[in-house]
């Protein structure tokens, strides 16, 4: 009798905790939706008056280094580098890091871009694997291009750090060599840095989208479409929610938790002083951002991290569950690593909003969320087996969570559509709008399982590398 009452007490505590947790999470999402609406609308209104052309011809434009690490990207490396060379900006350089590729990436680049090895005074401000050689083009058309050939560092972080060491300018844009950038990416990313009134902008990010069903011509996006494959389409919806609703909402509070590794502009000096990317981290982008914030607080730099709701980068999403699993496992493992490494910042008033808002949010609603959901499902199953479920109540609550999640995602799509109208036909928008209805049942459970797998690997210390994405390439626009 006594043991039953203990279980009942525990069950009640668990239920109440989950209820409070869920309520706070839902309120947070509602607030983020409101904040993001303000942010996105303000951005769109102001953007009408900021003409890119002014910066394009200006001798006062700050220089930017675009760095893109490549590992065995021989299939697409030439067209990807050509795509980067078409960027619209008055003062920039491109650094491609051949991170010990075992294919013929380097030879292809040497041949295609007339590269020769140069005596470059490489100053290793951040320690990396040895650099074997630095190449520049003898062809004036490719004067902006530099290729670093280095020993494989088994991480994107190590390759990025080598490029940061060689970068000439005060700002760098980090991207993946297989990402397709909008031609005005640099103009857009530098604007928040130049327009900030009272703070030092240490990083700027922009929205990423899925490239799978889009059309490209010579590395330029010509037609945007929602992905045909269901898994990729789920990711498109997730990206819209994360970037347009999440990051834009946080941007209003100057609480952006992360600038995506796919595309971000960073202040080089702060990045170097913070130690650069951590090659042992599985979430090196978020890890660097955290350290840059920490450095700024420690050195009393009044910093800001800004986000742009405009889509400036398209990346290929995994379309098989196997590759998707690998990607998400790595991300969640990176999150767990980050939380452990910087736990001193948690609820620490010394780190301002970072310690009191971003860290607790990441801890409770990013790190713990899969665990709570997982235990919730188990609890549900146990209660069902014991016949202790009040089905009408359970169904109402489940329906509540379902409709709420659909609403949040739909609002993200709405902000995106009202501001940018990316898709050409309304059928494509309808196609995308239908996706959140399935996300709850098909996509979300996968995310939870892969996150749990990542945490398990983190706890057991299983070895893994940044791995191969197994890319399928982009759709090319049909010739007219």
């Amino acid at each position, binding site marked *: 009798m006594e043991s039953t009452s203990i279980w009942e007490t525990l069950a009640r505590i668990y239920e109440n905790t989950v209820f409070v947790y869920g309520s706070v999470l839902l309120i947070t999402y509602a607030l983020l939706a409101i904040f993001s609406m303000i942010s996105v609308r303000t951005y769109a209104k102001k953007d009408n008056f900021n003409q890119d052309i*002014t910066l394009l011809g200006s001798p006062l434009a700050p220089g930017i280094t675009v760095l893109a690490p490549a590992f065995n990207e021989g299939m697409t490396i030439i067209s990807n580098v050509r795509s980067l060379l078409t960027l619209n900006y008055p003062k920039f*350089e491109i650094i491609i890091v051949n991170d010990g590729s075992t294919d013929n990436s380097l030879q292809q680049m040497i041949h295609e871009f007339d590269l020769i090895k140069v005596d470059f*005074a490489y100053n290793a401000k951040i320690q990396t694997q040895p650099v074997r050689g630095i190449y520049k*083009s003898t062809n004036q058309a490719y004067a902006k291009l530099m290729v670093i050939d280095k020993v494989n560092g088994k991480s994107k972080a190590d390759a990025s750090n080598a490029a940061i060491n060689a970068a*000439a300018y005060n700002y760098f844009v980090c991207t993946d060599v297989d990402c397709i950038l909008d031609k005005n990416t640099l103009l857009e990313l530098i604007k928040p840095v*130049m327009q900030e009134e009272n703070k030092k902008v240490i990083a700027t990010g922009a929205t990423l989208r899925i490239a799978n069903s889009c059309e490209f011509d010579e590395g330029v996006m010509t037609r945007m479409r929602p992905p045909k494959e269901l898994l990729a389409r789920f990711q498109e919806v997730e990206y819209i929610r994360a970037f347009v609703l999440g990051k834009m909402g946080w941007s209003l509070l100057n609480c952006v938790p992360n600038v995506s590794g796919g595309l971000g502009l960073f202040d080089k000096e702060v990045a170097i002083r913070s130690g650069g990317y951590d090659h042992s981290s599985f979430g090196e982008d978020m890890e660097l951002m955290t350290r840059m914030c920490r450095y700024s607080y420690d050195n009393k730099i009044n910093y800001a991290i800004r986000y742009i709701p405009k889509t400036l980068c398209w990346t290929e999403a995994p379309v098989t569950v196997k590759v998707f699993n690998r990607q998400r496992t790595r991300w969640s493992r990176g999150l767990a690593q980050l939380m452990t490494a910087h736990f001193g910042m948690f609820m620490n008033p010394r780190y301002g909003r970072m310690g009191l808002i971003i860290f607790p949010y990441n801890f409770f609603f990013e790190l713990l969320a899969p665990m709570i959901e997982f235990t919730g499902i188990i609890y549900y199953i146990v209660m069902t087996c014991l016949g202790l479920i009040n089905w009408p109540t359970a169904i109402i609550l489940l329906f*509540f969570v379902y*409709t709420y999640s659909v609403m949040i995602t739909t609002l993200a799509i709405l902000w995106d559509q009202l501001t940018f109208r990316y898709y050409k036909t309304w059928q494509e928008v309808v196609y995308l*709008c239908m996706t959140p209805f399935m996300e709850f049942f098909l996509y979300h459970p996968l995310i939870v399982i892969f996150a749990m797998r990542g945490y398990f690997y983190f706890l057991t210390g299983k070895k893994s590398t940044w791995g191969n994405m197994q890319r399928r390439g982009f759709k090319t626009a049909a010739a007219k």
Partner: protein
Amino acid sequence: MEFSFYEFRYAPLSIQIAFIFIVVAITCTIIAYLSILRGRYKAYRHEKKLASLHPVIDNLLMEHILLNVELANDTPAEQVQLPVEVFRLPVFEHRWAREALIDRLIHYRNNVRGSMGEQLRNLYIQLNLDKDSLKKMKSHKWDKKVQALAELTNMNMSIADVTILPLTNSNNRELRAAARHAYIKLSKNEPFKFFDVVTEPLLLWDQVELFKIISTTEHIAIPNFAQWITYSSNKTIVSFCLKLVVHYNQLSAVHAVIKLLDTKDHYLRGDAINCLGKLKIEDVQEKLIHMYNSQPLNCRLEVLKALGRISSGKHVGFLRQEFLHSTDFEVRKHAAKSLIKNAWAAKGLIQELIDTATLENKLILKHCMNPLIKF
């Protein structure tokens, strides 16, 4: 499963809340879909209307202004008859159509000069479109004001100083910038007067925009920027003026720039050194070398760069010393670069350094000598 109001009233609080939220969520989702649909439909209708109106406007402008032979021969606009009546179409009673007309007039005015541009301006006035712009100017919304300022500036319509000057210090960045542009473009006597009243910092973006306006506006009286370099308490104005001094090669401001070397702000001091280097002021080299050791890194690097830009060949010994003995990589690199720029006076020295330098220093020298490497 029937769920009456009675049952709702006596249901647990969590269920009541859940019910309310379900209704809110479904309503919001439906409103969101309707908004997407409405937004797309409105944009589609607007695009369609513009697509049919633009050719009408273009044909009228082509026929009566852009292909007018007299205007093409640069006959003064006031001597050429403007058939205003043909432009008074019923469609222009709608605000959206007048907006479209203003946009097209601005577009063409930005692409033609002389009498044609003047005639487009006349048309803008005679169709009372300037009244539309002035009405927007009185709006409480900042974006309307910015739009009005852009229209009036592009149409070269004068605006009273008392209206614009307060806006040059507005809290809204976009409005502030638009007012400053308008002031520079439209002020007949002292286009830079707002430099005296600016209390807010000039952001880098503002500087880029102002630089473009100043350097591309015709018939603008360029003042001596030394007055602001000497007297302005706004550091960003001083820094911007230093850039303008370089752009206009304003040697008359050199004395004021040299005085700025004594400022306590090391960023401003760095800008002043940079300016002197770009102006290639030989006489200042001694002073720069004299102050070098007491400077922070950014100023030291600027001094080294200035010695390279001036390239007088008189201070290769100093550059050699910095190159060989500095422990800072950047200092050595800039010293080497400046040595290479002084190569005409230090050929033997450079060869000697290549032969005797450490491996790293030799690499720095080769780096700086390689024309493929710019930085």
